[in-house]
């Protein structure tokens, strides 16, 4: 009975935090990316997907889009933070002729993080357990993130690496024997214990 009550209380607290923590986590991710800011909305989508898979309490529902797992909730949260002047969004051209969005914290954004951490010390603790993974993900290759997250998406459904890998490669129109595909598979596997 005591175990049930504790479990129930923990669940309730976690649920309450989950609803609150989206924006704080996003801001911390952008802070972790350093002075150059967090480059790329696609990268942001995939990084949060992996962190969520690992257990970060993020209220972001993911679906499969043609470029891999995508969360409209996450996209909206970014827009909210930008409209609250807590983030700056910069648009630049890529070498391939496309457009890339990057995010940097504003001064009010940095103050907002400090304020949240002062008011709720447990928030900082909740993110710190994911901080190392976040830093690793931010530095990872975009293809590992894109195909890797698609493999993981299928793995969550089928619980079979071969099926997940083949589905993901077919979905992305990529050769499953290529070095980059195998690299993405190993990348995805590194998140499953």
């Amino acid at each position: 009975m005591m175990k049930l009550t504790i479990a129930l209380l923990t669940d309730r607290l976690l649920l309450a935090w989950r609803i609150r923590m989206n924006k704080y986590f996003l801001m911390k991710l952008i802070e972790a990316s350093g002075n150059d800011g967090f480059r790329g909305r696609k990268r942001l989508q995939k990084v949060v997907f992996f962190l969520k898979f690992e257990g970060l309490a993020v209220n972001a529902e993911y679906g499969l889009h043609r470029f891999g797992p995508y969360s409209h909730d996450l996209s909206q949260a970014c827009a909210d933070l930008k409209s609250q002047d807590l983030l700056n969004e910069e648009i630049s051209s890529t070498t391939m002729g496309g457009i890339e969005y990057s995010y940097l914290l504003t001064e009010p954004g940095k103050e907002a993080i400090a304020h949240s951490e002062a008011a709720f010390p447990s928030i900082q603790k909740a993110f710190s357990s994911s901080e190392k993974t976040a830093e690793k993900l931010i530095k990872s290759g975009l293809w590992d993130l894109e195909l890797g997250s698609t493999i993981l998406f299928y793995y969550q459904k089928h619980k079979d690496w071969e099926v997940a890998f083949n589905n993901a490669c077919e979905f992305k129109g990529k050769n499953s024997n290529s070095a980059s595909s195998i690299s993405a598979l190993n990348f995805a596997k590194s998140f499953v214990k």
Partner: protein
Amino acid sequence: MGDKLFRDPLYNYVNIDRNDKWLIDAIDCPEVQRLRRIHQLGVSHFTYPGAEHNRLAHSMGVLYLMSKAHFHLQNTVKGSQKAQVEHSKHSLLAAALLHDVGHGPFSHLFEPCMGINHEYWSVRIISDPNSCIHRKLAKIYSNLPTDVCDLIEGDKPSLPRWEKSLISSQLDMDRMDYLRRDSLFSGAGYGHFDWSRLITTMELHENDNEGIDLVWPEKASMAIEEYIFARYYMYQNVYLHKTTRGFEVLLQAIWKRAKTLIDEGKPPELIPTIEKLWLNEPEDISVSEYLAVEEHSVLSQMQDWTNSTDSVLKDLATRFLNRDGFAMIDPPPVSDPLTEDRSEWESKVADALKKNGFENASCYCLKDELKAKYLSPYRPEPEKGLQDTTNAIFIKSDDGQVLEVSESLPRLKAVIEMGKPSSKFRYYVPKSIRKTVQSIKKNGLVEDMTEK
């Protein structure tokens, strides 16, 4: 046999082609007929008494629109696309009819109460070789049930993108039916748009080596704009109506209370069908056991709970059945934009509840989140490389370029750029302490929280 005709308030007649008798057989299946007993709009009839329409009528409406769309594409596409369109007919029509077959009581709103995922159950029902619907589909060709499930789930690698878009996208047959149907039956006349124009102008566009997408020509832009605003108005006036949402959170609070009692070892009486579905993992529940839980089961269960020995469960169930809802309170602004914390105010509300005889604040101060995506007409994914039909609507300009629709509609673009609302929260408390809670919001502190 001639065409089979069904009278429908939106389309006048929904006709099933004489060569598609298999669709009549599918409609006659018990799994599909069950949808008659599920309200399309959950508990919106508590707000709009006319909103009693059911999921079966909606499913047949989607079937009708899909048949129109397929007919149009069949007669307009050329080359290799023609064979693809022809080949997709059975799976598209079946998916249109069956996309909601897995819905539980009160549609979407009840899903968190029992952990139901209607998409998961739609696939289970169609895949089950013992289900009537599976047997009817398999008679057409053996893989049809699988093809339909793939369309409903939408993540199979080989699934053509345009097919998926017709079933589920920002502008799909599902939305095109329910917006107009819900508008008609609620009486809230906001859900009007030129659906015929949208269906008769859609095109397939080959995206180099990336697949084929569903797009519209520039001449359909205004019809798309009208649809976008109709969708927005329906959300503000019907789907997010404060009274409806109040009853939705109340229903969820009832089932949350019952679950709490179970977890604490004081389970309330449960009727067998509910107990089986609720207290077991989905993998351990058969399709027939799932289908046995309908709205009448849920209402019957709550009727039993009006005599519960737990006073909170008894009170909440009675309120719901007697349509004695809670009062909506707009909360004060948050002090912390990142955590959206209002715990200090919530704690004062809990004190007020206690002083007025409501011991259990979590059951009597109910929170509802209105997600930001529903609070503005259209928010496409801004980065072009991340856009697809699930987060944007596309038009093909006269010079063959495919653009996200707001790029060619300055008015729509201005609305997108004008205001980007954040998620909103509403709270619901018993009417008897509404004034007290409003005082807390205004003054910060209320000495005497006893409502006179």
